[in-house]
């Protein structure tokens, strides 16, 4: 199968940037990625832009600001997985022979506070059903009841990711926190405290995809191959799925969208969770990260707490998770989130991650999941 390589990356830091427009942030990230790839005007044949809140023709505005329009520009919305969806489309177009070089980027400038979503009907908002953190809280409570995870584990996830984030100059929060302080922050929706939830914010990320030599053909040392980019939605029935239905079935055997996407991605990439060296996963809330360990197959069912306690998922452990600091440190600009993970993994696989480097990392996985439901799983491999 045709290989796809990541030829360049660019990132606008995640945070709050009053006076900086969505277009400014996007142009910054795209400019860096194109420069790194040595691609100029006319050097890419299509662009896919992930955004959930950007509005009409966000991608056109960004590329218009750079004087680089003319090719097809497609905005892609898939909630928290918008960037992964854009990556899936861009890489498929290369693998299918349609294009040689594709620009994929994501931009977001989130409103402050609890995310308002057009997903909910007006009556649902009026009656209090648009309380996104409440769904996270219910999911966390159920997970805790079935997995042996306690509030102390949730705090430990925050402590770990914030410790990782200290070394990420592109993160919003760059200070360590103590478990006691996490547990002392106010309760948003039991069992979740404020510091266990990521902050919606602003940022942009971009990658240039290029047709590479066949995957088995040796594309040269140090190149990063996009081994899989998969998007899946939910199967109907799970009441606490990210699809946030009004009701669900009592069947607990349904695979989650994350598991569906991960299984597909492992098959496409021709590897499994045991082959991974580094993971960036969705930590919208601290429990979500631990659920992801199980859903991605990083640990056996019921093994998330042990994996965390043993330090497996910390930098220095066997399989560091969220060495970037995760969304708990970076914040979450929806459309840029998944591609921000990809930028982090490329840096890790190139050995350019500085003090947060996962030494010897060759295979990385990025995971996003959110409204829709949409789950994205991306696998990168250093050749």
């Amino acid at each position: 199968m045709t290989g796809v390589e990541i030829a360049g990356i660019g990132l606008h830091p995640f945070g709050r940037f009053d006076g900086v427009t969505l277009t400014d942030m996007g142009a910054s990230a795209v400019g860096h990625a194109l420069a790194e790839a040595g691609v100029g005007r006319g050097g890419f044949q299509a662009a896919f832009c992930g955004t959930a809140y950007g509005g009409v023709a966000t991608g056109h505005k960004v590329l218009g600001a750079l004087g680089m329009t003319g090719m097809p520009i497609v905005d892609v919305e898939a909630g928290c997985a918008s960037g992964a969806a854009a990556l899936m489309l861009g890489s498929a177009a290369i693998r299918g022979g349609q294009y040689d070089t594709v620009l994929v980027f994501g931009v977001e400038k989130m409103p402050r506070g609890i995310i308002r979503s057009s997903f909910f009907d007006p009556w649902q908002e009026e009656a209090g059903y648009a309380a996104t953190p409440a769904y996270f809280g219910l999911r966390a409570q159920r997970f805790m009841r079935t997995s042996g995870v306690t509030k102390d584990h949730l705090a430990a996830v925050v402590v770990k990711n914030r410790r990782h984030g200290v070394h990420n100059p592109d993160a919003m929060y760059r200070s360590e926190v103590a478990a006691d302080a996490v547990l002392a922050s106010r309760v948003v929706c039991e069992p979740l405290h404020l510091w266990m939830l990521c902050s919606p914010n602003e940022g942009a990320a971009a990658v240039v995809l290029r047709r590479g030599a066949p995957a088995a053909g040796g594309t040269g040392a140090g190149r990063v191959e996009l081994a899989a980019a998969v998007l899946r939605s939910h199967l109907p029935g799970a009441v606490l799925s990210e699809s946030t239905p009004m009701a669900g079935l009592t069947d607990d055997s349904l695979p989650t969208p994350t598991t569906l996407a991960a299984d597909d991605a492992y098959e496409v990439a021709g590897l499994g969770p045991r082959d991974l060296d580094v993971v960036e996963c969705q930590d919208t809330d601290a429990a979500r990260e631990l659920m992801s360990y199980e859903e991605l197959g990083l640990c056996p069912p019921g093994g998330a707490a042990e994996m965390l306690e043993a330090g497996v998922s910390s930098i220095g452990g066997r399989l560091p998770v969220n060495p970037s600091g995760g969304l708990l440190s970076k914040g979450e600009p929806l459309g840029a989130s998944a591609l921000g993970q990809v930028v982090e993994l490329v840096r890790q696989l190139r050995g350019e991650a500085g003090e947060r480097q996962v030494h010897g990392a060759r295979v990385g996985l990025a995971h996003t999941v959110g409204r829709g439901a949409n789950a994205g799983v991306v696998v990168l491999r250093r050749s």
Partner: protein
Amino acid sequence: MSSTVPVHPGLFTEDDPPRLLGGRCHACGHHHFPRHDICPYCASADTEGAELSGVGRLWAWTAVTHPPPGYRGETPYGFGVVELPEGLRIVTRLTEPDPGRLRADQPMHLVTDPLHTDEEGRRVVTYAFAPDETPSPGETLSPEETVSR
């Protein structure tokens, strides 16, 4: 006398006690809520409307402490999932806003819950589940204590 109006039509009856208005699929046998013409679980169009049980058991619960976007009621309010005998889990408001006063598998029943008074002076109501009895102090468990067992 002020009149009462449901927050949205077709969700629940205005009987006392109220009942949720769902549906049942003849093809797969599953119930659903709210009412859909197409079964959300098997895509069959062979469905009919069905009033759902007004009683169930508490499956998950929390409380919302800050008003979410567009919300017009009071905070805090209880929020959770109640499992009905039909094999359906309902996402619902709970009348109990203190998670420490609820426990897993607790019997619950459906009630109408006032949200706010609208511009025309009408009481806007929605559906909610209420605990059948308030547990005595010795029985109360915080969610954390419940889950650590």
